[in-house]
């Protein structure tokens, strides 16, 4: 009978599937089962597949392999893609697994509210960063994007002594971060009557797009004294250099390429300020979760200052990395005496631990 055959075939398929997944399980379980009483903290990330997210996960991985986290925390990492239901399932499973804290970069700021509330109800500490979760019971670790816009604009105004033509290269329209950054910049420019905004176009937070759009706009622009860039700064510089224009003052993101121009590693040397959304937000969130679990800190959200670098303060190996690609985000580590966290290059490129103990300064 063909029916019997069909049923048997499907049963066989079921067994094959069973065995194959069963095997995968055994081998992956080993590293997690050592150690005494460590707290379990999981990172639930949405989309992976751009430089920033890769660095963000690498520094998290590196931090977990460094003391004090090595002895105190058992880490795990999950990616969900930009699919809310996948991330929601993963968080439900983390709840079942009995983790103590979940660190989230969300696929949707609102879509995880239900499951995050369920986690909170079970006493799990939830910390979200970058693309944060709205649920009021969760903690957040983030930067103030309006300040980003203001700080770069103020630097340009100061450098130009309040007189000159500026242009703005904006990010991806319709996102919260783009709106906030532009708003902050415009407030500062508007408060300085000597500053004239002569051009505004999008660079889509992408160096190639920023370069193309700048090349297209430049012929129609008067003399430009200052450039404010929301992302893709090295592309804008390349477009100015190719057009043979004199180099204006730049306020831009944390791209390594931009900082190479600022440090004079690439020519022409550029005067500028580089500020960016730091990938180490994941490490700050890890520390906040750990500290809350250990009772060392109150359950309170934190806002961290942007890591800032200017052309005269750049140090190779600390704030600019000559042997890393231009697209790398050089702000994977903070610097200076009040640094939030200092990480080594390998942590960002491979997720390998840096020597020594990791100190994270959450402020008071």
């Amino acid at each position, binding site marked *: 009978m063909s*029916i019997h*055959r069909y049923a048997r*075939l499907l049963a066989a398929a*079921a067994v094959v599937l069973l065995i194959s997944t069963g095997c*995968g399980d*055994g081998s992956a379980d080993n590293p997690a089962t050592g150690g005494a009483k460590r707290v379990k903290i999981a990172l639930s*990330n949405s989309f992976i597949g751009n430089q920033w997210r890769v660095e963000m996960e690498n520094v998290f991985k590196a931090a977990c392999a460094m003391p004090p986290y090595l002895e105190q925390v058992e880490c795990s990492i999950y990616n969900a893609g930009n699919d809310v239901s996948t991330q929601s399932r993963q968080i439900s499973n983390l709840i079942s697994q009995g983790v103590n804290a979940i660190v989230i970069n969300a696929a949707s700021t*609102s879509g995880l509210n239900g499951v995050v509330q369920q986690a909170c109800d079970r006493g799990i500490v939830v910390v979200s960063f970058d693309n944060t979760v*709205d649920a009021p019971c969760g903690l957040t670790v983030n930067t103030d994007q309006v300040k980003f816009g203001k700080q770069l604009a103020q630097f340009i105004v100061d450098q130009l002594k309040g007189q000159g033509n500026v242009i703005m290269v904006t990010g991806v329209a319709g996102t919260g971060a783009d709106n906030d950054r532009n708003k902050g910049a415009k407030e500062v420019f508007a408060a300085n009557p000597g500053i004239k905004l002569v051009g505004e176009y999008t660079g889509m937070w992408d160096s190639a797009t920023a370069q193309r759009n700048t090349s297209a706009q430049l012929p129609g622009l008067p003399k430009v004294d200052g450039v404010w860039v929301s992302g893709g700064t090295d592309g804008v510089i390349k477009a100015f250099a190719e057009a043979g224009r004199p180099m204006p003052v730049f306020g831009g993101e944390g791209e390594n390429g931009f900082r190479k121009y600022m440090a004079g590693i690439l020519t022409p040397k550029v005067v500028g300020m580089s500020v960016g959304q730091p990938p180490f937000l994941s490490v700050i969130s890890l520390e906040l979760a750990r500290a809350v679990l250990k009772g060392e800190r109150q359950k309170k959200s934190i806002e961290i200052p942007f890591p800032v670098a200017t052309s005269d303060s750049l140090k190779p190996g600390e704030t600019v990395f000559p042997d890393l690609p231009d697209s790398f985000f050089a702000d994977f580590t903070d610097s200076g005496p009040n640094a939030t966290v200092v990480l080594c290059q390998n942590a960002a490129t491979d997720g390998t631990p840096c020597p020594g103990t990791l100190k994270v300064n959450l402020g008071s």
Partner: protein
Amino acid sequence: MPDRLRRLLSGPASLGYAVLTATAVTYLLVYTTNLGHLPTSFDYLSILNTTLPLVFVAIGQSLVVITGGIDLSVGGIVAFCVAVTATRVHGSGLTPFAWLLAILALGTACGAVNGVIVARARIAPILTTLATLSIFSGLALWVLPVPGGSIPSGVRMVLTNPTVPTGLIWLSLAVLGWLVLRRTRFGMRVYAVGSDETSAVAIGVPAARIKIAVYALSGLCSALAAVFYVSTTTAGDANAGGPFILTSIASVVVGGVAFSGGRGSALGAMAGAVALTLVIDVIFFAGIDPLYQSLFQGLFLVVAVLLGTGAALIARARRGAL
């Protein structure tokens, strides 16, 4: 083997059932080896509540695929209805439920637009629904530019109660609805149009009207999915619909619905939808490196489909030999 079981195993939804059984068993196994106990009611309930939206979209998608079409606009309709649900459904008592009915009507209307373009203007379903996908997604952004909104807790308690499996009621209603629909004259005509439209028209089946109704039903299913989505997540997001396009098509494929039309069952697609959700959990507990998660999800799809085609081929070859 009892007669009924035999029919179940050879029926149009058998691939879906087999894949679902395999993933469910794997899930139980991986879960138990990992945590040392069987899944708790929390696990079952959260699986149920997160799967419901996809189950509904998969039902609608399978209806369209059975007529030989495809509906890419489900993503747009879900997004649009999610946006409207999260921003407009307020109040207490019966008011929010009246709003929910209005949203179901809205989804049905969106689907009917697809149907009219496909059936009357005779534009290929893939083109039509690709275009309306953009339109509905745009409308969603217009209604809800940034993620947010809310849903009254009364609605939540009835639709996807986080402590009582109310979702089971809605799931059973969906199954029942399909079983009834399948046996009506309309249900049979859907299959007739899908297997051979020309012959169907020749014997007097109003193919255009059937198609419009099927796309409208798909719109209704997307609206249902949207309502359940907002109920589980407690808020809206204009980008909520996107993932449903591929996952609903994948559910239909795993559920054994033929893309040539005329063969398959919404029950298979429902089983496929649940299986796809369970795969996420299996991958989670199997401890597969996060970087390769989507690779394994894709492999699962390919294997499921290959098994289905292989089984069908063997069955046909044997039938030919006899």
